[in-house]
């Protein structure tokens, strides 16, 4: 644990220094890396250990972005982020309570369409209540603020991941992932644990959504609920090794950088290779790339 924390501190220091020494473009790039790092590690926190594949990250990201946009300008920045996280987490709790007692595949299927459902619900509510759709974000904070916020959220996600893995809660989740029925017989309240884990990962997605949305000035349901970010998060986490701590992180950085370089020339080739890589991993490396380095980790 200590080694992990030290490593995290070192990386944090480097990331902290970047805005002062790097170009605007480098900061943008780092922002993307950080975004995916926090999204995939918080996703892996729940889905990696319990084995419940959630494809709803876009829903939580979007909810965070939207609720953040609603209160931006009226509340201090930190509170905006917290509200984004809270709305997402509450939604996750409600959703989870409804369906987490069903099997893993039902859960995945449900989350798959969830983004569309929530997007339509938000659009409908907007039209009825406010008569318009989408928000123009006027009181946008400084770019550095956004960067440091996302950095802070990433660090928080990593720390939470480290702490949770070693806690009873984390072990319970891992137990659910290994054999849910056995965990239940051993006295684990699987339902509460699952809902809790789901809410935590949703909260992070919501917070990141709230933070990133200010970069787009105008958000509407179609942009913030785009499944692209969500799917890429899932792919990165799975390829990296969802059950590990460093797998998703390293994969996030590598793939964000890769995406950036390939983005301009061969964006589709990049996405295709992500898909291919996932299939290969599922076939030969169920623990993800991280299992190359840490072969002992349990595969989901």
């Amino acid at each position, binding site marked *: 644990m200590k080694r992990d924390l030290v490593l995290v501190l070192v990386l944090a220091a480097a990331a902290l220094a970047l805005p002062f020494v790097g170009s605007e473009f480098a900061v943008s790039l780092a922002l993307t890396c950080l975004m995916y790092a926090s999204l995939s590690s918080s996703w892996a926190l729940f889905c990696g250990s319990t084995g419940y594949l959630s*494809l709803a990250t876009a829903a939580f990201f979007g909810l965070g972005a939207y609720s953040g946009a609603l209160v931006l300008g009226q509340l201090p920045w930190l509170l905006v982020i917290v509200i984004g996280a809270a709305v997402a987490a509450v939604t996750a709790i409600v959703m989870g309570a*409804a*369906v987490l007692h069903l099997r893993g595949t039902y859960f*995945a299927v449900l989350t798959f*369409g969830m983004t569309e*459902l929530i997007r339509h619900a938000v659009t409908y509510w907007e039209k009825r209540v406010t008569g318009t759709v989408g928000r123009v974000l006027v009181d946008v904070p400084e770019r550095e603020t956004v960067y440091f916020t996302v950095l802070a959220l990433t660090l928080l996600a990593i720390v939470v991941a480290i702490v949770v893995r070693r806690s009873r809660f984390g072990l319970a989740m891992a137990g659910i992932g290994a054999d849910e029925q056995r965990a239940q017989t051993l006295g684990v309240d699987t339902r509460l644990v699952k809902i809790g884990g789901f809410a935590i990962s949703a909260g992070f997605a919501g917070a990141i959504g709230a933070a990133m949305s200010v970069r787009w000035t105008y958000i509407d349901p179609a942009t913030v609920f785009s499944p692209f970010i969500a799917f890429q998060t899932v792919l990165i986490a799975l390829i990296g090794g969802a059950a590990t701590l460093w797998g998703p992180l390293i994969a996030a950085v590598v793939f964000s950088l890769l995406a950036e370089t390939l983005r301009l020339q061969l964006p589709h080739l990049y996405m295709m290779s992500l*898909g291919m890589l*996932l299939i290969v991993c599922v076939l030969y490396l169920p623990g993800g790339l991280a299992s190359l380095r840490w072969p002992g980790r349990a595969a989901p």
Partner: protein
Amino acid sequence: MSAGAWLELIASGLIAGGVYALVALGLNLQYGLMRILDIAHGEFLMLGAFVTWAAHSSFGISPLAMVPVSFLLLMIVGIALHRLIFRRLTRTSATLDVFEARGLMACFGLMFLVQNFAQLLWGGDLRGYDFLAEPVAIGGAQFAANKLLLIAMALLFSAALIVVLRTTLLGKGVRALLQSPTGAQLVGIDTRRLHPLMFGVGLGLSGVAGCLLSMTEAISPSMGEPYTVTALIVITLGGFGSMAGALVGGLALGVIEAIGMHLTSPSLKSLLSYGIFIAVLLWRPNGLFVRK
């Protein structure tokens, strides 16, 4: 609204539902039989649509002729995919749950692969062509000829599948597997040949749906996903593994959506479908038609 208009509404719901049923049947075959939840199913529909469009615009081949071609093509793709991916997964997965989860992930990767492959090959532009778009009057209501063809073919293929499953030896083997995988194997039913074949048939049906849809809808690489979601909803309604359930469920969903859109607005269509989905999942997780 007049009675004639109501009939028209329900009929157009059935037409949409016919496609849902076709796609859902394929998905059901894969999940009911093999526990492979093919979340990439809609992408193969999209491939069927693109192949038909390409054949039609480059070589002038009639989409009707492409119906069996799409079926065969996608069936071959399905058999190949099963051999390459799922056979190994079956061997290396410790339990059925693990297999299901990994199958889901593999299909997720497939979804990415196929969709972006299509983007690479054909670009993001909307494509389309006109085929049999002339209106046909049936008893006061008007429908596009290709829409009628769509429902006719969808019902034909669905019926054919169900008949095959019920009457032929192959079909009986499949149904046996659906009922009890171990039992079926004990009786000597060869899953090694049946599984890839049925997986292929599932994808083939998806391809046919895509081919039929290409006549009536705009084609784009992202057209498949909504159908995947709808098919998932349908098989939940109809019950995992029940073919008749998928057929009835698909048609019913189409009608419900049409009526819902009329009473509210199209914006709420997916809200409605999803609401039904969640309700059924909570109330009858095994589907509405499966007797416990």
